[in-house]
């Protein structure tokens, strides 16, 4: 009597959770059984012939108990899904969390033959489309003509991105969070590239492309036109631009780290650099150079399961002597990889942006890591104007779930002078 009596009220309270658990069990059972049938006999060695097309649902956790549910389509062996995902970049996952925090439908497809480069990347093409309930739309396509494991490759990329609720707070380090406004950006771009080197951390890429961005008032209030008047002199507010760019990017690094299974880098370094020259195609007389440099270092703290990760990043967009002021939407901004973590996406933008990260990461379980971090970020109109008293600090922690050694989910909670922010992202990242 006694044990049942003690447990009864708890069972009543926990009944909804029990139902949820049962649902998860049934779903996992049905899904995994189907996957096993598709993949054939489990275990090492050659497997039975897979079906040509495998449908694999994926689930993403979302803030405020929402769920991001999508359909991921792989073409080829389902066991190749991580590579396909890496190639196709899974649009829903690469979304900017702070402005797309909504459910996504995303699909990606990539050609994944057995012919792999030494880096494990497949040969071929990738297509990726997504749509979110907040009406973000994204489509990317990539094709490379030569095999990825050859020393030289030629290819092309095309993308269409429609983002109706981007944030704008003004330009410069002294902007106020009270002037939060919304704008819409619609971008189409195409690039051709020549790749030299087949290693993911040692190579050079030369490229040229065209980019068209149109902006207008976004889906939300206040819109940028309502919050910022002509006296604010926001360059190219409401005006689209079309530009051509030429440039190169290079990466050099040597990292490694493998505990038992998938593990992000635990020791080594990476240096990345990009330089682009932009010129207008629409008579706006725009001309500027864009530089981006990033250095990362990973230092094990007495063991590979404890890592001190450091990152320094510099981005700049410097207009030519005869160019008008750069469009506000083409300036470096604190968003995406450059996010100031305790601040809203797009909170700061200017011609110069500097970011410094220090993280302590420690292994928790399988592919799950915990992280504690501190971050400093600056923006300024010129490199001479970068002042330490304008630094924006973010402190916090989070978890990282490594899907592959370079592809991971990351959930951070950061605190800074303007409050606390959460950031969730999926993809190749620091």
């Amino acid at each position, binding site marked *: 009597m006694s044990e049942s009596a003690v447990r009864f009220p708890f069972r009543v309270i926990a009944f909804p959770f029990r139902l949820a658990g049962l649902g998860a069990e049934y779903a996992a059972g049905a899904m995994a059984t189907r996957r096993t049938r598709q993949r054939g006999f489990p275990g*090492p060695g050659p497997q039975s012939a897979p079906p040509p097309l495998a449908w694999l649902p994926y689930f993403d956790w979302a803030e405020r108990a929402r769920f991001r549910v999508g359909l991921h389509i792989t073409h080829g062996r389902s066991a190749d899904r991580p590579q396909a995902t890496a190639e196709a970049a899974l649009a829903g996952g690469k979304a900017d969390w702070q402005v797309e925090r909504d459910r996504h439908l995303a699909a990606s497809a990539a050609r994944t033959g057995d012919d792999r480069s030494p880096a494990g990347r497949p040969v071929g093409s990738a297509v990726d489309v997504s749509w979110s309930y907040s009406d973000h739309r994204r489509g990317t396509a990539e094709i490379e003509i030569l095999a990825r494991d050859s020393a030289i490759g030629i290819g092309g990329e095309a993308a269409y991105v429609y983002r109706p609720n981007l944030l704008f707070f003004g330009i410069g380090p002294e902007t106020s969070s009270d002037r939060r406004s919304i704008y819409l950006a619609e971008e189409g771009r195409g690039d051709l590239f020549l790749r030299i080197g087949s290693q993911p951390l040692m190579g050079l890429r030369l490229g040229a492309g065209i980019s068209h961005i149109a902006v207008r008032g976004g889906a939300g209030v206040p819109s940028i036109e309502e919050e910022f008047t002509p006296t604010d002199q926001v360059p190219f507010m409401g005006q689209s631009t079309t530009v051509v760019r030429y440039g190169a990017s290079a990466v050099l690094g040597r990292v490694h780290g493998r505990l038992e299974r998938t593990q992000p880098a635990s020791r080594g370094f990476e240096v990345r650099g990009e330089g682009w020259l932009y010129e207008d195609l629409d008579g706006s007389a725009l001309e500027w150079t864009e530089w981006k440099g990033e250095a990362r270092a990973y230092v094990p703290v007495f063991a590979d399961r404890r890592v001190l990760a450091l990152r320094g990043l510099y981005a700049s967009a410097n207009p030519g002597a005869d160019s008008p002021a750069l469009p506000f939407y083409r300036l470096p901004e604190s968003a995406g990889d450059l996010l100031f973590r305790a601040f809203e996406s797009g909170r700061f933008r200017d011609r110069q942006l500097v970011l410094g990260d220090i993280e302590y990461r*420690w292994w928790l379980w399988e592919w799950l890591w915990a992280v504690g971090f501190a971050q400093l970020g600056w923006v300024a109109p010129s490199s001479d104007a970068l002042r330490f008293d304008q630094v924006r600090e973010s402190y916090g922690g989070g978890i990282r779930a490594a899907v592959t050694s370079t592809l991971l989910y990351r959930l951070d909670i950061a605190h800074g002078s303007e409050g606390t922010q959460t950031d969730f992202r999926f993809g190749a990242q620091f």
Partner: protein
Amino acid sequence: MDPKEPRPTSASARSSDRRRAAGREWPPAAWFALVCALLGLTIGPRLIGPRLIGPRLAVADDMPAARPVDPETFVDHDAHPPIPEPAPYEANLYRYYVRYGFVQPLADALDLPGAILDLAGAENEAANVNQFDEVPNSSWFTNRNHFRAVPVEEIRNGPGNCRRPLPPWIIKSAKASGVNPGFNIEDAAGERWVIKLDPPGYPQIGSGAEVVASRLLHAAGYHVPHDVAVVFGHDDLVIDPELAAGKEGADPFTQEELDRILDRGGVPPEDGRYFALASLFLPGKPIGHTEMAHRRADDPNDWYSHRRRRELRGLAILSAWLNSWDVKDHQSLEMFEARYDTLGSIRHYLLDFGATLGAAAEGPKRLRTAYEFAFDPGWIGRRWVTLGFIEEPWRSAPQETGIPSVGNFAAEEFDPDDFRPTLPHLAFQELSAADGYWGAKVVASFSDAQIAAAVEAAAYEDPRASTYITDALVKRRDAIARVWFDRVAPLDFLQVMDGSLVFNDLEVDLGLAAPRSYEVRAAAVTGTGAGPEPLVISSAGLDLTALAPDPELDALQLVISIAGSEALPTVVELRKHGGLWRVVRVRHAA
């Protein structure tokens, strides 16, 4: 606006403020404190360290009103009455993984009523023990080595008495389940076997572990299949003509398919041999796995909640000994044995011991395996709290032997309390001190020669493997005995001889402790007057006439402990029949 004027707030916030002001709503700090207290109460003990007694589950719910165990004998007549053939049951492995890999650990970590019951000291005794604190023989278990030493020849020969699959082997079907590739065969003697190939690069790692574990578990008393390690060549195999033609509408089984299976089983050495396990088909008809969470509804002889069966709880200790880290429902099988036309009974088997010692399906087991659950909130929490600086036992244990046929198997620095199967096992979680003692007693009953015989049965070609595994099992046995016999007084086999109560001190018998003295506290359970005062005796014998001279006294309860030890005592009850005392009840860890 006047800066001192309160800012306008939302309606809900104003309502909340009013409730708080009226004292009807707890302030956030109080909620926070309450949540912290509840979490501390439930998670705290699990973070501090492993508990002797696992999280409690509702075990009392499905208990029958009466116990079928004959309390004075060692037989549980659970094959009677005969029953019709039950429906086959197949548990979905992936559902099982989700439930016991993720849901159950979280539920255990937040098991507040379990914590309350623990604090209240609720009893958690196994259901199927007889009056002598032993497990009766049943369709689940047969008392063997700890009652009567099994001859080493019997251990070496196994339950099938040394049978081996005689070539040629006619392949009847490909193996349909499990990770290891293989096939089902019929040998030249017409017997059916399952063949499981060893993984590439690790000959005999799986087959050896299976043979050793099955021999020892069988000698311990569990029902297991007859497993033998075999070496065969391609020429020993013949594809059944029906299978080759496409049996029952299936695709034809071709020579290429066979080669593909053999390739997955490992690249054969130059002499063209393959290493594998041959497991003899069990008698009867398979009707599914044993489910720990539920009794079988269509078997009226399945009396006890499975997690209250001592032999299943005590299996935790044997699993720790053998490093049987993948023990779960799917590593069991129920066979229906028909005896009266359509009627019969169920026999419960353990099987599939490829994940024991240092082995896993793909080669050596992972280092973390057998030390943590696949998803272990306790260890995750400890790592998180310590910023990753905690040193887990699996890191310091010398597991990596460098012997391909052994894998990762620690002989030194083995602590049985560190053992964890991959998934939480419901019966293991119910392990009480008495159950653990019983399991340790069974483990401790194996001699070095018996262990060596079991290892010898695996016929390791690498002599280092036999030596290492035998040595490791001996050391692990001793470690288990030390831990549990220090926890529960190992005073057993109590009986009255020539007016004296005699018993064995198992730790002394094993040579792990020097002869020592014992403290006896006696009380009359019936009759008149109080019992004698505490008494210290220097040998495992107690003169009952001197202890209880009153002729009217016909019942005694003795609490026997080891002098100077904190081990839980043994309680023995005696009754006088015809002027002679006899033991009527024994309880360990009382």
